[in-house]
């Protein structure tokens, strides 16, 4: 008579040989799952913030508090390299898109650290702005996570420096608007979505609470005490006409300085060319008496303004690598003998934010 044990109705367990002897595979799976849950809970729970008020959220979202989510989005394990090789075998950008995503680019080029460099701040902000405007709903989970990491880093930087508060506020507002408008296209659960909205709200509040340090009467020179040539020199530092106009709107003295035709002429030719000017004039430029401020206003609607960045990403035309200007990259070209190097090919090309997005996403 066959032996009928306790589990005689079951098909029987699958046994595998391990270092510690024979074990049932279901037991191994259970242990593995228990281990994964424990690691996940340790990462998610962490230190509980008792001040966070999260009404009307389910249990899972209560765990995803602002502090906890911000902990989980830190990419501390990822190696910090600042260059990225574009896949060369793919001829079309569509094929390239399968191998290279926005998230990969953001992570590989370490945009989070780049934001803390004052020379790269505006460049990174512009890239993030373009991603949010045009590709927010197509971002994968890790890209979205990293994007929020970058935004948090931006808030921390602005809080410390008290500079470019409006720039970052605008960025956060656009992100929030996109999240609300593209709600059904978001990756992740409802709890994560709610938490991210909550985070954006918290960051906006932090920026609003940054109080400007008001200048007191300490007997030392003020902006108005500077000689006129210094004040003019200061106004010439601005590339955005809005900054010139905002200074001009502070008082009558700066209004006169801000209306200087020479200032507006230099600003005009910084953004636009003679050919663009000629396109809107009826006769030769030399025979015209031009109101440069008015002409700027007119051409601003027709043409794009010049964007200049101190530190940009560059593309090596030889090895198809994208890298930060100052950091360089391991180019295969320089490993060749001097006689074999082809000096006719242009070595590097600056990538404007639009160029970068076009490479990745077209």
């Amino acid at each position, binding site marked *: 008579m066959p032996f009928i044990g306790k589990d005689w109705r079951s098909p029987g367990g699958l046994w595998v040989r391990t270092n510690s002897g024979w074990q049932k595979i279901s037991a191994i799976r259970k242990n593995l799952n228990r281990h994964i849950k424990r690691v996940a809970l340790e990462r998610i729970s962490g230190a509980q913030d008792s001040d966070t008020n999260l009404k009307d959220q389910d249990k899972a979202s209560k765990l995803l508090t602002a502090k906890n989510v911000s902990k989980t989005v830190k990419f501390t394990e990822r190696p910090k390299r600042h260059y990225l090789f574009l896949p060369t075998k793919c001829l079309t950008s569509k094929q390239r898109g399968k191998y290279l995503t926005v998230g990969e680019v953001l992570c590989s080029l370490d945009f989070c650290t780049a934001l803390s460099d004052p020379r790269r701040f505006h460049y990174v902000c512009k890239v993030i702005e373009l991603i949010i405007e045009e590709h927010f709903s197509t971002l994968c989970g890790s890209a979205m996570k990293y994007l929020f990491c970058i935004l948090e880093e931006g808030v921390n930087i602005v809080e410390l420096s008290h500079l470019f508060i409006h720039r970052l506020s605008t960025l956060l507002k656009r992100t929030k608007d996109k999240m609300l408008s593209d709600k059904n296209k978001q990756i992740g659960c409802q709890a994560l979505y709610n938490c991210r909205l909550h985070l954006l709200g918290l960051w906006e509040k932090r920026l609003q609470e940054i109080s400007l340090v008001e200048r007191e009467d300490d007997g030392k020179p003020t902006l108005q005490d500077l000689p006129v040539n210094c004040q003019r020199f200061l106004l010439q*530092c601005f590339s955005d006409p809005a900054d010139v106009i905002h200074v001009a*709107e502070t008082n009558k003295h700066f209004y006169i300085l801000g209306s200087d035709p020479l200032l507006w002429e230099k600003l005009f030719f910084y953004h636009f060319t003679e050919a663009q000017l000629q396109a809107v004039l009826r006769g030769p430029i030399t025979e015209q008496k031009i109101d440069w401020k008015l002409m700027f206003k007119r051409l*601003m609607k027709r043409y794009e303004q010049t964007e200049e960045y101190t530190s940009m990403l560059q593309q090596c035309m030889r090895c198809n690598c994208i890298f930060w200007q100052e950091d360089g990259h391991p180019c295969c070209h320089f490993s060749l003998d001097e006689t074999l190097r082809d000096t006719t090919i242009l070595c590097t090309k600056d990538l404007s934010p639009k160029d970068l997005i076009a490479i990745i996403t077209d």
Partner: protein
Amino acid sequence: MPKIKLQSSDGEVFNIEVDVAKQSITIRTMLEDLGMDEDDDEAIPLPNVNSAILGKVLNWCQFHKDDPAPPEDEETTEKRTDDLCGFDIDFLKVDQGTLFELILAANYLDIKGLLDASCKTVANMIKGKTPEEIRKTFNIKNDFTPAEEEQVRKENSWCEEK
């Protein structure tokens, strides 16, 4: 290294290398016009700069003594304000009063690099701010009447459209 003496407005004398001091076009012109030798014991008086600011200016000049000559104003078409080196960023982390004193000193001594760096620092403090925020930051008195202010705002509303 040949040295010269500079005397601040409050009587303090600074003994500095000629190459460092010659970054100031004003001092360079004084040395050439007055025919002063490096061995002269007589200090060059700088009545418009006090010792605290002169010390800082000379510290800046010492760091930048090997820099190439800055381009002429007409040649520069760049409008970047975030290209300051690490030393300049830290050097100019001072209160507003000191920052403006450095601008006045750089203007008087005609040190283009320092004037450039300090004006860019002020420009960064202004960028992105509304007129009211600029007034608060720099303690600027608004002398427009409400009607004038409104008119100016309407006249310039085009720059806010982007």
